[in-house]
């Protein structure tokens, strides 16, 4: 019995050393953490996380000031990726900040637009084209769907519409869950 205990202890020590060695030996010197986190965030720049943009939120996560579940546009995918990066367990999205919605883009009703430029000032990614007193349009591919332009518009001419699904963007749905998996 004693030998067994000793042997197991010895094995444990050896493996411990091995792991420690590996950790030191294969350590990756990469981007600073903030950039790595920022790379995972969706860059919608919507501020729903409670920070003025993705980068500030990334900084807060890196400083351990914020949980990883505060980005609604990123949703589950982002949470899992963050958890992976930081070696934490994935947690569900914080209901307080909102919920994961289908991706949207803004469109300006060009008939109604009065050319006030307020939306341009709100848009975090300069996705709106137009000059003062001229009709504005949104560059669809560059719009992140952050909705920040909706509120400032004085004539309510900006609508958020879901991105249309086509055969090139269609995704296979997640396979139906058997009850065994649903509980995992």
């Amino acid at each position, binding site marked *: 019995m004693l030998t067994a205990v000793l042997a197991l202890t010895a094995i444990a020590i050896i493996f411990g050393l091995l792991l420690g060695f590996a950790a030191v030996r294969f350590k990756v010197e990469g981007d600073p953490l903030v950039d790595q986190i*920022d790379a995972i*965030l*969706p*860059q*919608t*720049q919507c501020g729903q996380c409670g920070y003025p*943009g*993705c980068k500030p939120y990334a900084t807060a996560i890196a400083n351990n000031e914020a949980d990883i579940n505060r980005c609604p546009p990123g949703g*589950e*995918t982002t949470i*899992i990726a963050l958890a*992976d990066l930081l070696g934490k367990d994935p947690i569900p999205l914080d209901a307080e900040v909102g919920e994961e919605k289908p991706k949207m883009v803004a469109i300006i009703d060009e*008939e*109604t637009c*009065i*050319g*006030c*430029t*307020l939306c341009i000032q709100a848009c*975090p*990614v*300069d*996705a709106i084209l137009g000059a*003062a*007193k001229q009709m504005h349009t949104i560059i669809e*591919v*560059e719009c*992140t769907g952050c909705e920040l332009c909706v509120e400032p518009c*004085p*004539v*309510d*001419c900006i609508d958020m519409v879901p991105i249309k*699904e*086509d*055969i090139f*963007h*269609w*995704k*296979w*749905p*997640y*396979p139906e869950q*058997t009850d*065994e*998996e649903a509980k995992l």
Partner: protein
Amino acid sequence: MIRQLFRFKGGIHPPQHKDRSTRSPIQAAWLPKQLILPLHQHIGESGEPIVAVGDHVLKGQKIARASGYVSASVHASSSGTITAIEELPIPHPSGLSASCIVIDTDGEDRWIEHGPEDIPYTEMDVSHLRNLIRTSGIVGLGGAGFPSSIKLNPAGSKIDTLILNGVECEPYITCDDMLMRERPENIIAGAKIMRHALNARQCLIAIEDNKPEAYTAMIEACKDEDIEVVQVPTLYPQGSEKQLIKVLTGKECPSNGLPFQIGIVVHNVGTAAAVHNAINLGEPLISRIVTVTGDGVAEPCNLEVLLGTPMQALLDQCGGLNSDVDRIIMGGPMMGFAMHSTEIPVIKTTNCILAATESNVTAPSDVMPCIRCGACADVCPVDLLPQQLQWYARSKEFERAQEHNLFDCIECGCCAYVCPSNIPLVHYYRYAKTEIWAQEREKEKADIARQRHEFRQSRIEREKAEKAARLAKKKAAVKKPADGEKDDKQAAIQAALDRAKAKKEAQGVEPKNIENMTPAQQKQIDDANARRQQTDTSEQES
């Protein structure tokens, strides 16, 4: 000489069910009232329509041109009038719609003037030959639908072997089998053209040993040709390009490379026949042979179908759909996609329409957890670890899945076929693949957004700094020795306030260019202002 054959790892022997559709010869399908021709029938960019609604078109007339290098043109498969160019359901697992050209046929089936080129292909410039094939809209007819002219361009590589794929390893499908039995000379004529284009040293035709009639017919037709017909033992998924190459040559095509890099090109036998039609007869690709089979139809058979014919028409011709049909599969039972309706048209890659009853397909039984039996890994022709892949796909650890070579999976379905726990493994891989693609797209988008955001931020910073600098300058200028600094400050603040006010006004809260406005525009603005007032007050209230 008996050719030495090789073996790829894994593979399965599913029941064949091929004999039911080979009892009668290939028949011509009826001319449908309406043809629906999707612009996207192949891998690559969609075609670009070159006709307009109301145009009358003739059979064989080009109605959409290729819109990129990897793209293919579309031709009218019968004469008639273009009645719509709109989004209609196309054969796709999603059941979604995409752009289609709709032709109401006039029943005359009148050809456009056509015929072979004046000079024989052997004397043509090879790139001209390729271009003829390209403008004929020919894509791989085996199922993948890659534009054939590209696969006939060795791009500088020396091509040793041209392989014609007559393997047809999927159960139920017999269109290539019947083609080889009935029109071997077309295949061989096409093969010679392809070989000429590639300047290939040898040409092989591979046929599985469950098709003895086709084998005999091809041997007979190849008597005087320098083409070798090779019989290969039946094994699914041998018809997959890279697996077939391994079997015939022992060479392994690199994971993300193409066969021509190792001096090999593979074309389907049907494609060869289409090339023959295009070059020797001048006919573009407007029809193909389709196997209509399964217990869901009364008379399974092979039909020569005009592209764009709705599947329902073919099912009707084969005796109509039985009421106990469970699903309509385009392609075979191992890799085919279940269709969402029967009004979906036949396209260039439709090799089979399988109207499957519940007894033809496996009724869904309970999915159990993976017991790690490894049966899936034993049959995987690519030597992946399917059980690990499904684990990662299920837990959405896509990076790990990619690390385990998810993208080498050819979705052959061998793993799911043998899995005792009945896990829909391939569905998991498809889910993961499309999800990864979407993530990549999103990542790209996020990168652009980040750049633009950072650019904007720095611009704002800069503007702020410039403004501050200007202000400081002004301040220095207006500074009077007598007055106290206090006044000075106040004046600056006042000035800033004025400016802000002016700016606000300029920003269009009160637009000034109200000359030349139509009453409607005026009303719009008034309405807008009214709404704005409302929001303002409501905001104050809240």
